[in-house]
């Protein structure tokens, strides 16, 4: 099984089909944490993908850096967080030619943000291949204050910007790379249901 299995949901909720090789074309590969395993499996299946590949890796506490480098990509870069690697990613997306493939593997928040960056840079949706690895945490936009709360693991959760208690919707915006959070006690202020852990 390539990546996490999710419960079937509504049509705006992204599906991460697993990385599929597009062959020996130029490629940008972004792997966060255990997402590195997806790149290794990809290279194992089709070693030709690495010849023109630019790997950007965010270890997130995992130790796969050496193994990724050993795959022999054309460029390799390691950075501590997504915000830290964003300037490099944006440059790479901006420089990319038509036909450049984009592979993204990691948690949902990272896949969502990198996809949003790529779409904004003009990458065609069909050139993006994704695989989910890691927990079920979600990146949530508060529909009220518009602030984004990263790594949400409970439903409801508290908006880290305006402090409202929000319920977690499956409705997802590819442009924002985020799910929608909506005030859970809007009709009955103060009546907030018990927090539950989000499942995939």
């Amino acid at each position, binding site marked *: 099984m390539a990546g996490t299995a999710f419960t079937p949901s*509504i*049509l*705006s*909720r992204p599906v991460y089909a697993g990385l599929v090789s597009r062959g020996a074309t130029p490629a940008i590969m972004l792997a966060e944490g255990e997402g590195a395993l997806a790149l290794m499996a990809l290279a194992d299946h089709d070693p030709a993908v690495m010849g023109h590949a630019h790997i950007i890796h965010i270890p997130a506490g995992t130790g796969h850096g050496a193994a990724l480098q050993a795959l022999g990509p054309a460029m390799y870069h390691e950075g501590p967080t997504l915000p830290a690697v964003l300037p490099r990613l944006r440059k790479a997306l901006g420089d990319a030619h038509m036909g450049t493939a984009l592979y993204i593997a990691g948690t949902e928040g990272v896949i969502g943000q990198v996809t949003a960056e790529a*779409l904004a840079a003009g990458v065609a949706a069909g050139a993006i291949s994704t695989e989910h690895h890691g927990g079920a945490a979600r990146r949530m*936009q508060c*529909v*009220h204050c*518009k602030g984004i709360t990263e790594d949400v693991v409970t439903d409801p959760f508290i908006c880290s910007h305006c402090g*409202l208690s929000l319920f977690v*919707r*499956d*409705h997802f*915006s*590819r*442009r*924002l790379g985020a799910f*929608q959070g*909506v*005030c859970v006690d*809007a*009709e*009955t*202020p103060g009546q907030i249901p018990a927090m539950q852990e989000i499942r995939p």
Partner: protein
Amino acid sequence: MTLRFNDETFRGDYTYHNSAAAVRRFPFPFDQDSYMYSVNIEPHRPTRAGSVFEHRFDVDEHYVAEMQDRAITLADDPLRCQSLPHMELAGWDFLELVMVCKSEDYPDMFTLHRDGDRWHWINRPLGIDQRFTFMDTSTLPCGPLEYIGRQTQGDHALLDQREGNLWMDAGIVTSQADWSLDFNIGMNFFEWHAPVPKAHELGIFQRALKFLTNVQQGKPSRRLNWTMTVNPRLDTSPENYHKWGPEKRTITPENVGAKQYLRVELQSFYRLPRSNALVFPIRCYLISLEDLVTVPKWGRRFHRVLRDLPDELAEYKGFAVNRSMIVDYLARFDDGAETSAGIFPD
């Protein structure tokens, strides 16, 4: 037709009201005693003098107050009007469509003079007299979509057509039934409809999209959609849900007739000439239950529709918590008599 515009509000003290004539011409959306989602699309051609289907962009007694309400909402939240960069041309197409239709259909209220690209627009109800250069945004106080959207009742979405799909790439949306333009911008037809229950399984969106991508210039279409709103509030946005949500729980058996409104959207679809985009006007009409039941056919039928509506639809439309009070109220106006076909009063 000379219109008197109501002095009324859609928030706070909620002084919104329908005249007897407005009640008679209300677009009651049920042509039979039950309701389920369907591809209910028909040509948007002039129908019945005096009805909301007579003109392409209906202007009614609420026009001025609605535009004032829109201005309040936009000042509060400018993200209610957005346009991705490639939609500017569609914005001009839309402005032209509205100015031409309104000046033809309501010459006493609106006048458009065109001399090449030098245009002169007069909107008497709103006291606007504007000379500008068509396709030159610097000659208008704001972009074309916002400019004409502030003078046209109803929300408007501009849909780009590509890859066999429609993309919500621009809009001006201040009277929506609980969806967010800011969140939906950039989505395609299936994505923005994702939260709707049942209709995907029924194949409705597949068929609807096929129809819409084939809409031809000069041949607009329309459909009616409906939901329920407590108080005559236009801005039932998710953005402000924490502000209007508590009002939903103020319904009692005593006040339900006055406070509970049927909200009907007259939606239409026009192909735009230069951009090949579609414009999707979503015009909102509100009527209190106590006004609605003054038409006996509507009272009977609405009772049966709401009594028998699938729970999922009541839940999605957001009135499940008040449903039994609404149905009990309407039951008093249903004597069991047969109802005639079609939506119009007998």
